């Protein structure tokens, strides 16, 4: 039996019995446990490269509830590379303006003022089920073009037995259990990861604990598309902070930070939720618009991570490996960065092009990303819920000053929004032989810029590639078994020049399959590129 733990909004991979259930255990190169955003993204990335990926999920689609709603530019860039970006952008709500209140008073407003010359905005709000649906649709499209991806719904992993040369997996289904084997297994099964439990592994650190009440309300209200954040909200029982944020389909996300010691049952009583929501919605307009409670939930979060994201042939990605508070939208967005990081490395190792040790760099690089996210998230939490008398005095001093003086506003911390980390000085990157802009230094994710009628990221692909500006165009080549393509721009736009050349007249970039800059030079030198590529796949 496979228990139903939650309702699904979209059925994306209905259960179908497969022949393998009645046969001897079959070996799969990659088995992904969990069909959420991270699991689906890894499967899609691998499948597009021709490496078979099998996703096992104990449900058959996207769970109900908006959950992660804030998707950052980097995530949209990754989705764009995977062919899933456009529907997300079409459906999502783009927002730029935020207002910060303290009790009744507006303190200040900010505008993300996104840089021009990017295909994707700084952020969109989109309910997580849509995000998963669009990834699943792209998987279906890739499958129809022959990508070896298989999604098995209502396939619950009940036992994991790591062996020297594979992982033995027991799977339960509505037709009973069966066995399979994986060369590598990736646990993308969320914060309460059953895989983690089955392997007897745990988290390090519990930096912070709190409860949030989420209410998604549907209303035809004339609220602006802005992020409204309250410190010390004036609504009765609203807790320490509150957030109002627009989603697609006339739905608004409302968060109330309730503190640690609460009566969950009473807090989830719709009458109590409505009291809070009424007070919030009327606080700025004086009236309560008609609205419908779409989804409510109380959730607890912690800032913590597993010490190691790799255990032999088992990898952890997304919430199963690390968790942060929701301030800053660093959960799902960091999970997508895990996905792009591990996919190309597994592909290269499974194809025999890179040494097995390359896979260790996934844990190293993404552990660093998790630390950065936990640091940002913990700092925001310290500001929002001061832990001592003096920290509260300083917090309130910042808020007092922020209403009057611009200098204090950057100190106000209601979450630092997700940006990808830069793998500065990590072993797979370098050299940086160009006196170029910091934003595109080795270790950074390629930032977008206008090229012709389109954008740079439209021209970058899933493989290793050379991006050359203004110099002699190198020829595509094969290095260490990788097809290295070339994208060449003779006449860079101003934004492209600013982001990739700076004061340099010309440049040659080596970019790895997850579109991070490996190395850069002022001139093309075949032997330098070969050395940098060898280093980037762990053969350095």
């Amino acid at each position, binding site marked *: 039996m496979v228990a139903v733990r939650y309702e699904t909004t979209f059925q994306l991979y209905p259960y179908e019995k497969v022949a393998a259930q009645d046969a001897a255990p079959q070996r799969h190169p990659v088995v992904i446990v969990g069909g959420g955003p991270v699991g689906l993204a890894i499967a899609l990335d691998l499948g597009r490269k021709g490496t078979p990926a099998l996703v096992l999920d104990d449900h058959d689609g996207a769970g109900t509830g908006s959950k992660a709603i804030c998707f950052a530019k980097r995530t949209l860039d990754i989705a764009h590379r995977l062919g899933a970006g456009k529907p997300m952008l079409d459906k999502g709500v783009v927002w730029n303006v935020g207002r910060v209140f303290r009790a009744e008073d507006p303190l200040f407003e900010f505008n993300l003022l996104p840089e021009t010359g990017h295909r994707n905005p700084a952020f969109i709000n989109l309910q997580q089920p849509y995000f998963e649906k669009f990834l699943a649709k792209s998987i279906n499209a890739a499958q129809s073009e022959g990508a070896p991806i298989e999604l098995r719904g209502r396939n619950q992993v009940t036992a994991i037995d790591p062996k020297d040369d594979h992982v033995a997996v027991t799977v339960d289904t509505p037709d009973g259990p069966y066995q399979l084997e994986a060369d590598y297994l990736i646990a993308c099964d969320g914060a309460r990861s059953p895989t983690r439990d089955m392997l007897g592994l745990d988290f390090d650190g519990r930096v912070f604990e709190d409860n949030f009440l989420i209410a998604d309300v549907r209303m035809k209200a004339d609220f602006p598309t802005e992020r409204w954040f309250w410190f010390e909200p004036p609504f009765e029982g609203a807790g320490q902070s509150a957030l109002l944020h627009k989603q697609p389909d006339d739905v608004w996300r409302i968060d109330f930070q309730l503190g640690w010691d609460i009566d969950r049952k009473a807090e989830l009583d719709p009458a109590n939720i409505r009291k809070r929501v009424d007070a919030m919605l009327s606080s700025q307009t004086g009236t309560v618009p008609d609205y419908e409670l779409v989804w409510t939930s109380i959730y607890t979060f912690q800032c913590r991570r597993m010490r190691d994201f790799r255990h032999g042939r088992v990898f952890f990605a997304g919430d199963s490996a690390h968790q942060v508070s929701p301030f800053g939208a660093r959960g799902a967005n960091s999970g997508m960065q895990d996905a792009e990081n591990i996919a190309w490395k597994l592909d290269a190792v499974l194809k025999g092009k890179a040494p097995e040790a390359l896979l260790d760099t996934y844990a190293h690089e993404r552990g660093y990303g998790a630390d950065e996210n936990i640091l940002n998230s913990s700092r925001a939490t310290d500001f929002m819920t001061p832990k001592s008398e003096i920290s509260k*005095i*300083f917090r*309130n*001093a*910042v808020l*007092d*000053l922020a209403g009057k*003086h611009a*200098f*204090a506003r950057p*100190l106000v911390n209601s979450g630092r929004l997700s940006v990808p980390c830069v793998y500065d000085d990590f072993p797979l990157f370098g050299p940086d032989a160009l006196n170029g802009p910091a934003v595109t230094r080795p270790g950074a994710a390629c930032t977008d810029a206008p090229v012709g009628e389109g954008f740079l990221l439209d021209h970058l692909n899933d493989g290793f590639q050379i991006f050359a500006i203004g110099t002699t165009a190198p020829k595509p080549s094969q290095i260490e078994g990788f097809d290295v393509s070339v994208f060449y721009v003779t006449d860079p736009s101003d934004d492209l020049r600013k982001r990739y050349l700076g004061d340099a007249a010309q440049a040659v970039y080596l970019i790895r399959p997850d579109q991070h800059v490996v190395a850069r030079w002022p001139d093309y030198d075949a032997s330098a590129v070969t050395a940098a590529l060898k280093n980037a796949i762990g053969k350095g």
Partner: protein
Amino acid sequence: MPLTLTPNIPDPDGFYDELLGAHAQLSKDESDALNARLILTLANHIGDREVLRAAIEAAK
């Protein structure tokens, strides 16, 4: 620029008087709040992280 730890305030007695004067009639909570706002305002004026770090150390 290194942290200045030699006398640098003209009319030190006058400054001290002004500082205490700002706290006159304030409750303990109000004074704590004023001090915090003052530290933040001065810190922003200095701006230099090295100097601020040295000042925190020097004050310990």
